[in-house]
């Protein structure tokens, strides 16, 4: 090999970056830009036949309360996500203390995260089934037969039942991240607090929580953007029946079922803006805190 390092450098940079950059442009940036363009057209998803229609799609979205009523269903996933974050922190604190068998419990609580999501959704169909579901059978066995429910059929509770599936899947994931964050808090801080006579509750509020503040914020943001994008669980379990449709399900329906790609693009842009707003708020909050996530 007689090439100078200068030449080699150019070859390596070009050769190693060409393919990844083409892929990045083609599948991330080009679609994002075109999404915005299509949202101003009446494209039906086929061919090149499209007309510029200005803000018509956006006017339709903002004048049709149906879309925002659906957004309310995403709210259940957000509330579920808040509960999930709180539970994850609670279990992380417990499992970060010196406790026999804590590794076993960590593995158990994390287990759902690695399981196949579609299979989990179908598993919960068999759990929630009104006549043969294991949940109603369990309630019967415990003498709580009066609590039996049509978990997926009753519009008053089915969104909660679906949000619970999502909580079941992701709680362990949040917990493991919290455990990682907790382990980065130096042990002697607690030692010093104990010497000063602080109880466990005080140490939690004064040491633990400030020490993992950034991670808590990060989790809340992920929860919110995850809730806005809720899709797999309700899609598999109910197909949106009994008023369980989410914003993203609606968007994909408008595109692929009704072939209104222009309108669907506008819906996707609205969703993207909501997620971007959430991420932006996070960045600003972290900057204020002055430390990295």
């Amino acid at each position, binding site marked *: 090999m007689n090439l100078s390092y200068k030449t080699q450098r150019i070859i390596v940079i070009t050769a190693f970056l060409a393919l990844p950059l083409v892929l990045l442009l083609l599948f991330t940036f080009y679609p994002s830009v075109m999404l915005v363009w*299509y949202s101003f057209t009446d494209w039906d998803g086929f061919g090149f036949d499209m007309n510029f229609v200005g803000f018509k799609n956006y006017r339709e979205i903002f004048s049709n309360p149906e879309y925002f009523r659906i957004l309310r269903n995403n709210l259940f996933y957000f509330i579920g996500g808040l509960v999930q974050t709180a539970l994850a922190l609670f279990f992380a604190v417990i499992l970060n203390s010196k406790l026999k068998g804590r590794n076993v419990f960590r593995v158990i609580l994390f287990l759902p995260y690695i399981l196949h999501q579609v299979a989990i959704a179908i598993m919960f169909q068999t759990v929630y089934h009104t006549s043969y579901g294991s949940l109603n059978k369990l309630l019967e066995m415990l003498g709580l037969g009066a609590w039996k429910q049509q978990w997926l059929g009753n519009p008053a509770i089915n969104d909660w039942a679906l949000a619970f599936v999502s909580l079941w899947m992701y709680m362990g994931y949040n917990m493991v991240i919290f455990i990682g964050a907790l382990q980065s808090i130096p042990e002697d801080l607690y030692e010093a607090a104990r010497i000063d006579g602080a109880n466990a509750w005080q140490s939690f509020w004064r040491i633990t929580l400030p020490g993992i503040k950034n991670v808590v914020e990060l989790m809340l943001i992920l929860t919110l953007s995850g809730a806005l994008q809720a899709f797999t669980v309700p899609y598999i379990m109910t197909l949106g029946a009994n008023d369980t449709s989410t914003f993203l399900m609606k968007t994909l329906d408008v595109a692929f079922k009704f072939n209104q790609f222009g309108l669907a693009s506008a819906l996707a842009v609205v969703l993207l803006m909501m997620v971007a707003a959430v991420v932006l708020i996070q960045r600003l909050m972290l900057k204020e805190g002055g430390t990295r996530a």
Partner: protein
Amino acid sequence: MKARQGFFDFMKYVVLLIGSFVVFFPLYSVFVGAFKSRQEFYTNRLSLPSVWDFGNFAIAWEKGDLALGLGNTLFILVVSIVGNVLIGTMSAYALGRFDFKGRNFIIGAYLAAAVIPLITTQVVTYSVIKALGLYNTYGAPIVLYLGADVIQLIIYLQFIRNIPYELDESAMMEGASLFTIFRSIIFPLLGPATATVVILKFISIYNDYYVPYLYMPDRGLRTVATAIQSFVGPNAARMEVISAYILLIFIPTIAMFLFMQRFIFSGVTSGAVKS
């Protein structure tokens, strides 16, 4: 003081056992259901099966196209993961070791890409895939997992910073080419990051539903995720077979989890820091 500590520990175990029960109850109910006969399934929902019968698994395997689904999934997994590791290590080497014009711009572009929720742009990506002639081929999920998901690059970029540059320099003194340095120094030293990438990709690709669902509706191209959905539809009444099917699908990731626990926990933690 000691008694109080004992009480606290006792309460911790109570809470942990409740949590474990909530995790295990759905799993337990599909597990025992999978071994029951049709009649027993509907009469004795929660008890252990009176006879451990593997018949449901045989039906699920055959009727659910599971051999096909697992084969397709495995193929897509291997190609995508190998590609992700190569692309990730190569770009990390180019971006992490050389200072050139546009470098910060490219890194910024990757970070920005990580923020865009890909599922929102599917409406357009769909037409790109069609225009490239990749619709209904293995190519569609593979290019999407390679190009659209950039987490591996961020993990590698973070990692390569901690590999001392002196190693590169001393190899250059001995006249090694840059490609040799990449292949025999950088690539092996990125090993721990590769373990993380492989695991995170394995879990996310194996679980992914919407990419195969949108881009490979062809029956012969079913993956585990799409095969199960079509299996459940017409057979919805046979919950005991569905239970067996669910268990079969759970097995690959559970096996991986038990063997690679340590890597998974560190992978999840480092994967989160990037966002």
